[in-house]
């Protein structure tokens, strides 16, 4: 851990590893194999170009890029120049991009040919963008009111040494927009200190070293993807980028071929992997796979158990919990307690304290339910240009996660639901997560979401939207199975069978869009 002493800024992860392991392969993506020395040199060249374009300390630079070498060069290059990296969701269309760009007012936007049409339709000139840097541009930009420059041209200068710009640890390093699955997206402001402290904690509990090789299928714009990049670069490990998780067989094969040591995903990643991949057939070929980690929301017990059965015996499972507002991570379950603490999110990671508070801000007793409130040097600075939203979650106690749960006698935390997801049916306050778990436990469904929709009589009533495992499975059969485990008031009155649940690019289920799905079906199917 000694080398971490020299890492106080986000860009130090790369600079430190480039110094210690200049010729070591840091990134693998299709035919690309880039060393730390090469990536650091390119990031330095980009930083100089950004400064030439007028980027100064604190200026925002928006990234609209798929996972690739250029993303990594840009991410570190911007921070080297003293800028603030704002990676945006690559799924956004012009209507979604405009409010974020209006809020960020980025001086420069870095993107690729894949997004050229969307960028043209967005009209970047209205946001005072001073330059657009494009990887492999294909369209004509002759009428643009700002320079449009090929990224390759800006990372081929001769001067490639570190810049050594003085940047405070407390300076902003990144603004990451939360997925906005509930409400308006918010830009989470993370300082260098936030990211560096959290990165070091994660390296510590995952025992990461320069021998680790991570398979990355999560997007870097998502906080968990970002932390995979930072943690592995902090220790001099390597990342394998595979953007084809839609074809899981190719991912599993590459994991075996590249002797990957770590794989990370959100619940839907594992649901998909277990349902439609040759994971079990590859058990004997994943000798190097040291661990799998899961975060990004509650994963049902059934999937956890199935995952354990499907992985090689030597592969450990880390269940983790966090938030964008916490730079990524807050707690984890050590693999040795995976089985007996299966429903837990674990204990706080080094440097984090987590408490369960009631509505008055008082700490509750062991076993009692309250809101999780986190403190530590990883907690965000606030939401970008949204002081009201910031005040609603940050106070002297720390960051109010909005997650409800309790702590057991051994200090393990358990999430029981979201403060804003509770459904009130008649006089009962119902936690959808509990019902979703029952649906999953039937073994008949692949994914399930339980929602409360307005009802004149009850205030709200429950509707489940589920993806059945097999075609022959009916709504009635699923409900009958659930009725054996649920009291009547917790049994959804209706079950909608769908082929897939709407998800964000990072794989999280979009609850808002599930509501739309019900509305849509209700309006098109008479009598439903």
């Amino acid at each position, binding site marked *: 851990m000694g080398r971490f002493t020299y890492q106080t800024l986000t860009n130090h992860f790369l600079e430190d590893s480039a110094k210690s392991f200049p010729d070591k392969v840091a990134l693998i993506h299709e035919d690309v194999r880039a060393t730390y020395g090469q990536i650091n040199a390119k990031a330095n060249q980009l930083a100089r170009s950004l400064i030439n374009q007028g980027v100064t300390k604190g200026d925002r630079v928006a990234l609209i890029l798929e996972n690739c070498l250029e993303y990594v060069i840009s991410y570190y290059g911007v921070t080297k120049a003293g800028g603030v990296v704002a990676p945006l969701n690559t799924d956004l269309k012009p209507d979604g991009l405009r409010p974020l760009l209006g809020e960020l007012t980025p001086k420069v936007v870095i993107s690729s040919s894949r997004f050229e049409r969307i960028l043209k339709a967005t009209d970047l000139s209205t946001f005072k963008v001073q330059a657009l840097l494009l990887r492999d541009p294909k369209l004509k930009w002759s009428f643009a009111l700002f320079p449009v420059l090929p990224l390759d041209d800006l990372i081929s200068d001769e001067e490639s040494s570190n810049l050594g710009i003085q940047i405070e640890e407390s300076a902003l390093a990144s603004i990451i927009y939360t997925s906005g699955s509930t409400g308006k997206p918010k830009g989470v402001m993370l300082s260098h200190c936030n990211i560096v402290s959290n990165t070091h904690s994660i390296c510590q509990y995952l025992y990461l070293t320069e021998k680790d090789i991570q398979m990355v299928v999560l997007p870097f714009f998502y906080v968990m993807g970002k932390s995979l990049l930072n943690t592995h670069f902090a220790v001099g490990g390597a990342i394998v980028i595979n953007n084809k998780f839609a*074809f899981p067989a190719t991912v599993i094969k590459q994991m075996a071929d590249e002797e990957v040591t770590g794989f990370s995903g959100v619940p839907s990643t594992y649901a998909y992997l277990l349902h439609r991949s*040759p994971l079990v057939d590859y058990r004997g070929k994943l000798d190097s796979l040291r661990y799998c980690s899961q975060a990004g929301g509650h994963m049902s017990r059934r999937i956890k158990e199935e995952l354990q059965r499907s992985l090689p015996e030597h592969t450990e499972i880390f269940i983790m919990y966090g938030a964008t507002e916490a730079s990524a991570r807050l707690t984890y379950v050590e693999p040795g307690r995976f089985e007996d603490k299966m429903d837990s999110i674990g204990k706080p990671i080094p440097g984090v304290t987590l408490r369960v508070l009631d509505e008055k801000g008082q700490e509750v007793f062991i076993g009692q339910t309250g809101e999780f409130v986190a403190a530590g040097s990883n907690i965000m600075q606030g939401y970008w240009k949204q002081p009201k939203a910031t005040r609603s979650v940050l106070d002297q106690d720390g960051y109010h996660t909005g997650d409800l749960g309790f702590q057991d006698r051994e200090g393990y935390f358990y999430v029981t639901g979201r403060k804003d997801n509770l459904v009130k049916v008649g006089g009962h306050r119902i936690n959808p997560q509990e019902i979703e778990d029952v649906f999953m436990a039937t073994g008949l469904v692949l994914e399930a979401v339980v929602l409360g929709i307005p009802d004149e009589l009850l205030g709200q009533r429950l509707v489940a939207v589920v993806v059945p495992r097999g075609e022959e499975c009916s709504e009635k059969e699923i409900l009958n199975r659930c009725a054996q485990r649920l009291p009547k008031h917790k049994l959804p009155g209706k079950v909608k069978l769908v082929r897939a649940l709407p998800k964000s690019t990072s794989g999280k289920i979009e609850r808002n869009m599930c509501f739309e799905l019900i509305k849509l079906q209700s309006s098109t199917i008479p009598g439903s």
Partner: protein
Amino acid sequence: MSEVREIIRVFIVENFLFGNEDGLGDETSFLDEGIIDSTGILELVNFCEEEFSITVEDDELVPENLDSINNVVAYLQRKAA
């Protein structure tokens, strides 16, 4: 097979491109062009299984079989052989 090609094209255009088929060539990669994500691939697989009465095995879920209209048509041809 031109009928199969048309069936696949219509499915992609109606379900993922909201009726606008601009830029969708027979060789266009669904993933690289952001037309379909992993959820969409499953929908495509379900559609193929139902429409053409086939079973897509887990190890057949690879880009060579499913990542463009041409690839899907060729895959269905192989399955029918």
